[in-house]
């Protein structure tokens, strides 16, 4: 099966230096944050890849790089075999945009409060010239109504404003908007983390139903491992801008190999294991301005040795999964 999305050695560096005058006067050096540093993965058509990691690990930056909201510093993204870089010319990019859409985390911030739902969901249709002209003036309304109904809202909701909806309903509007251009690939950046659990269940179910009926491919970004376990086919674990482990879901959850993955799995409170003692992880995520040498995880890792602190491990193929860890490679753990 061919991969729909292929990412190779993707990197994004942000310049966070102080203003020029301060640098000159105070003698401060330029500073860079390697938000994403050499990330490679591929997603097969109809599958879901989930990226997990703690805040600041670069997962949202990967999402934005994929849909073109950021320009990569290095590396390339191929969509359906086509480099998205070469598509920088307006026409090529327009057709690509139609085929990939994004759902954002905060349904309160991602919908224009002054627009009616008809305009919000209809915007991509208008923008890409997909409005059904044959139907006359009602074409757009009919198309939007169908989209709304596919996510469990009513056709009458067309004339309401975002503030008239609850958080879960707003996220459905976001999904309807993302589906308007009939995309093949959806990038979902924490789509349910702003929602209550019962509403989260509704949205996750809708996303699964849509994937089945429309053959959608998802990049699903979340910090909630239980949610990831529910929706994903493959899971990539990120730490400080790098992928440390990529494995099929069941493999990752039953045999986590990377020490960071083990730590993350151990840290989840589980409602069905009351009384189980967790071993809390020591330490915190280091400052990305100043990442540790070698393997970025080595200061918190119980298996770290001299090699880990000096040499950065590459993501290698190991027993069918991808992992970046010296200890696993050497068979120490």
């Amino acid at each position: 099966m061919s991969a729909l999305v292929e990412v190779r050695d993707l990197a994004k560096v942000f310049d966070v230096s102080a203003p020029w005058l301060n640098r000159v006067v105070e003698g401060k050096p330029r500073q860079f944050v390697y938000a994403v540093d050499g990330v490679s993965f591929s997603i097969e058509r109809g599958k879901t890849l989930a990226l997990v990691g703690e805040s600041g690990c670069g997962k949202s930056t990967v999402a934005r790089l994929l849909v073109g909201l950021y320009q990569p510093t290095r590396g390339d993204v191929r969509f359906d075999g086509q480099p998205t870089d070469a598509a920088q010319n307006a026409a090529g990019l327009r057709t690509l945009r139609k085929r990939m859409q994004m759902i954002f985390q905060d349904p309160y911030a991602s919908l224009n409060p002054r627009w009616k739902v008809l305009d919000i969901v209809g915007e991509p249709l208008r923008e890409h010239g997909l409005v059904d002209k044959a139907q006359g003036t009602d074409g757009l309304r009919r198309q939007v109504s169908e989209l709304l109904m596919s996510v469990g809202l009513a056709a009458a909701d067309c004339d309401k404003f975002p503030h008239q909806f609850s958080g879960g309903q707003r996220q459905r509007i976001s999904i309807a908007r993302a589906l308007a251009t009939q995309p093949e690939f959806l990038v979902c950046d924490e789509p349910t983390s702003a929602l209550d659990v019962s509403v989260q269940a509704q949205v996750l179910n809708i996303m699964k139903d849509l994937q089945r009926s429309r053959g959608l491919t998802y990049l699903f970004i979340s910090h909630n491992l239980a949610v990831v376990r529910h929706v994903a086919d493959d899971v990539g674990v990120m730490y400080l801008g790098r992928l440390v482990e990529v494995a099929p879901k069941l493999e990752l959850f039953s045999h986590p190999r990377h020490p960071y993955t083990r730590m993350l799995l151990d840290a989840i409170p589980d409602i069905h294991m009351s009384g189980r003692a967790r071993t809390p992880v020591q330490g915190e995520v280091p400052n990305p301005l100043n990442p540790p040498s070698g393997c970025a995880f080595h200061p918190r890792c119980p298996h770290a040795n001299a090699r880990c602190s000096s040499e950065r491990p590459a993501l290698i193929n190991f027993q069918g999964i991808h992992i970046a860890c010296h200890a696993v490679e050497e068979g120490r753990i």
Partner: protein
Amino acid sequence: MALQPLLEVKHLRVEFPTRHGTLLALDDISFDIAPGEILGVVGESGAGKSLTGAAIIGLLEPPGRIAGGEIRLAGQRIDNLPYEDMRKIRGRQIGAIFQDPLTSLNPLYTIGRQLTETILTHLPVSAEEARQRAIRLLQETGIPAAEQRIDQYPHQFSGGMRQRVVIALALAAEPKLIVADEPTTALDVSIQAQIISLLKRLCKDHGAAVMLVTHDMGVIAETCDRVAVLYAGRVAEIGPVGEVIHRPAHPYTAGLMGSIPAMDDTRERLLQIDGAMPRLNAIPLGCAFNPRCEQVMDRCRVERPELFDAGATRAACWLVGAGT
């Protein structure tokens, strides 16, 4: 019960007068907490869990007000105390931990000054003793190099470290009760685990009871002794944590549990409760959950259920109380 509960909340009602009428945000909430016990309060946003905490520590935002019922701390009524008397109880007898550790610390003072100020206000010690005590508290909460860090400002601490400072601050005057409102929601999962185990250990060491408000059932399951499930400003179910999670008596609790993706389930779809929690101005007649309930009966639509005994737990549901 031989032991007197530390905190008793009886028929608590909190209302918000607005231009469009009075909204009843908490309606007849009753529960108690024994000394040293950890009670979890769980519910979706808007269920009134934070409001319950705010009412207990006497920090309801106006125009919100307690319209009925009573709150007793170690037998003494505290819901009708004058502001100054309540101020003495807050900090000394009830410690508070809030969700966002950045906004609950004053950015202009060193954390040492904030800690010693709290200690000096409530305890009869000298300034030097207070400082030593503050350093000890910081060490207890696991802050490395506490002697140096005590003179730093909140912005010099990371999120997890700040929350440790807030916990130290809440414990500073040795209160008997800690009200923790979503103490880990703003933190990453790996830090969350550290903070929860710290909170649990310290409260045990200091003999403090805890009311832990959170929306995270996982945190409840591993931390609490008992849990109260709130829905639309009412207690839907209350009981020992294992019972409520594994044998929920109320359909809402059952739905809530089913909608949480667990690490060991293989379900293709999650259980979902259709609809959303009603707004405060449109709480349905009878049981507040009846429009979303799959086992709704005629009686649920007209008559509000009280908390009935349901095995080990108590649930406000006619399915449980039908026989009585």
